[in-house]
């Protein structure tokens, strides 16, 4: 596949939008890292360096289609058109957050956008994706589900069960494996004996493909193909996206387990730079627009921080709300 060319079906606006989203993710993560001291949670996982996967994959689906996410969910949230203000406020633990401050970074979700939630349990998204896909199938809605997960998650039993069921029932689920070579501090080769996890697809009877996870167009094209197949009732695909996270596991992780050489090597392959160059070559954008987009993005991030700071802390009087649809008498003090 020649991913140097922009997909024919993308308008200029769409092509630029892809760029904007990737940049937004980058700047968003940069900002929360800077604000880590204010945010305080040690469990905030930035997506920096992996932007092309969420954005490329989500570009291949429609608004009505679903995604499930991981502990590293901000990128997926933004890629699925989630509101940055609501995202930032959630991470800040504020009433105005998308989950009213209940969930935090590991649980950002926007059900109005069919973004079914980041998840604190590694490997827990895919089993849920099965059900969403089944619902779509039973109701003949033609909707598909993208389920994101990591190389570390691949070794969870839940992944095995999910891929097997998706394959057997030909469910419209696409498994998007973000292979960033590490599960927390653990190198993939310490956790498994195979280099390519996509090899596992054949054991379930589905197609497995490998793509350059830093190339948004490649990710898009593979996902599109898988989505088309799924919509036609052809079932599931496993797409392994090779990538690397630039930052530590969390915004506060010292990241001593990876060499500087490795990090620098990967930074040379910045997904945003790669795509930007193509846009320039394709004369879709120029330096003025780039500048403008950068400024606009930073401004939006800044505004989201302002929004978050202005948003109130959640009202402690509401702490027991939303456990059940209709409140019941619960144990308390």
């Amino acid at each position, binding site marked *: 596949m020649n991913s140097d060319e922009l997909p024919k079906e993308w308008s200029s606006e769409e092509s630029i939008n892809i760029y904007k989203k990737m940049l937004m993710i980058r700047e968003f993560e940069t900002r929360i890292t800077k604000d880590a001291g204010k945010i305080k949670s040690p469990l905030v996982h930035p997506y920096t360096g992996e932007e092309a996967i969420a954005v490329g994959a989500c570009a291949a689906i429609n608004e009505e289609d*679903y995604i499930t996410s991981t502990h590293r969910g901000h990128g997926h949230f933004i890629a699925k058109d989630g509101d940055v203000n609501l995202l930032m406020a959630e991470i800040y633990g504020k009433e105005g957050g998308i989950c009213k401050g209940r*969930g935090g970074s590991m649980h950002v979700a926007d059900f109005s956008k069919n973004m079914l*939630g980041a998840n*604190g349990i590694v490997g827990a998204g895919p089993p849920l*994706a099965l*059900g*969403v896909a089944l*619902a779509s199938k039973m109701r003949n809605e033609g909707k598909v589900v993208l389920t994101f997960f990591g190389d570390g998650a691949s070794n969870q039993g839940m992944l095995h069960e999910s891929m097997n*069921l998706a394959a057997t029932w030909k469910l419209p689920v696409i498994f998007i494996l973000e292979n960033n070579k590490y599960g927390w501090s653990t190198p993939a080769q310490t956790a498994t004996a195979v280099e390519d996890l996509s090899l596992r697809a054949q054991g379930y009877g589905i197609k497995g493909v490998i793509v350059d996870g830093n190339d948004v167009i490649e990710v898009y094209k593979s996902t599109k193909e898988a989505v088309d197949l799924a919509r036609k009732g052809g079932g599931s695909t496993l797409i392994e996206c090779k990538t690397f996270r630039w930052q530590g596991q969390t915004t506060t992780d010292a990241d001593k387990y990876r060499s500087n050489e490795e990090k620098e090597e990967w930074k040379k392959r910045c997904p945003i730079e790669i795509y930007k160059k193509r846009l320039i070559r394709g004369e879709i954008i120029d330096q003025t627009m780039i500048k403008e987009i950068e400024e606009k993005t930073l401004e939006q991030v800044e505004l989201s921080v302002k929004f978050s700071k202005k948003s109130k802390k959640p009202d402690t009087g509401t702490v027991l709300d*939303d456990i059940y649809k209709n409140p019941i008498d619960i144990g308390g003090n």
Partner: protein
Amino acid sequence: MTTETIKMKGSDAIKLAIEEEMERDESVFIMGEDIGQYGGAFSVTAGLLERFGPERVRDTPISENAILGCAVGAAMAGMRPIAEVMFADFLCVCMEMIVNQAAKARYMYGGQVNVPVTIRVPFGTGIMGAAQHSQSFESWFMHVPGLKIVLPSDASDFKGLMKTAIRDNDPVMFFEHKRTYYYTNEVPLDKEFMIPFGQARKFTEGDDVTIVATGAMVQESIIAANKLKEENIQCEVIDPRTLVPLDKKTILGSIEKTGKLVIVDEGCKTCSVSAEIAALVAEEGFQYLKRNIVRINTPDVPIPYAPNLEREIIPSAKLIQNQVKNLI
């Protein structure tokens, strides 16, 4: 509406409820291991495949996480799935989807989503199932906010509570004691016969002792109460029917009258359902208590295979009778 009733056993009453709800609402479907052609390990779903077809009666691989995850995900997408875990003991391989996902989704996502899933769980002793096919885990789930816990003790309650469970908008754990599958009583045929959650049922009236029992222990307690009546000891046998929400009022009201509480529960004693009920009464009904609370449980032992050993440890009518007499 009909006021007709028909005598049937517990397992058939569950099936009837599921059948009626599947007929009424297209979004209801069932899934689990061997529930289709085979009809389920306890024949609860026999015949439903023929009736509703393989799209809505789904045989699954032996992948409990995928079964539960699929059900919970479908519920999030607006379906009303009923998933079966073949034996309660197998909950140990699929706690994740229940505890960290179904129970918490609504709260941790800030109220954005409902999870109207019903999880059916046959449990308890009585079939020489030994340590891994006999357990009672309902207290674990009472400890998990966000779940509702139902534990009927006879056929009519099975029907009325199953229908309520299916229509409920929160995740419901529906525990079915294997022995109670075979208990028969009169079951209303009314298709809108629904028993609300949080309403205990009183089987006998009396001033002397309150007996709170669940599942198969309800029958044992009724037998004991009837025997005790012959000796002029009047017991109230109360079945909470739903453990979350729990009908505190009926329990406390009875103890206000009797001043004495015996709890009968098949779970291993420590941190079982009986612990919560005892604690609740020690907190909120202490002023009524004239005696120490008595808990009758299976002791803290893995369930043995040999029938005489199993009988030795499972609370019986006889044991209840003796313990009540000791208390008085």
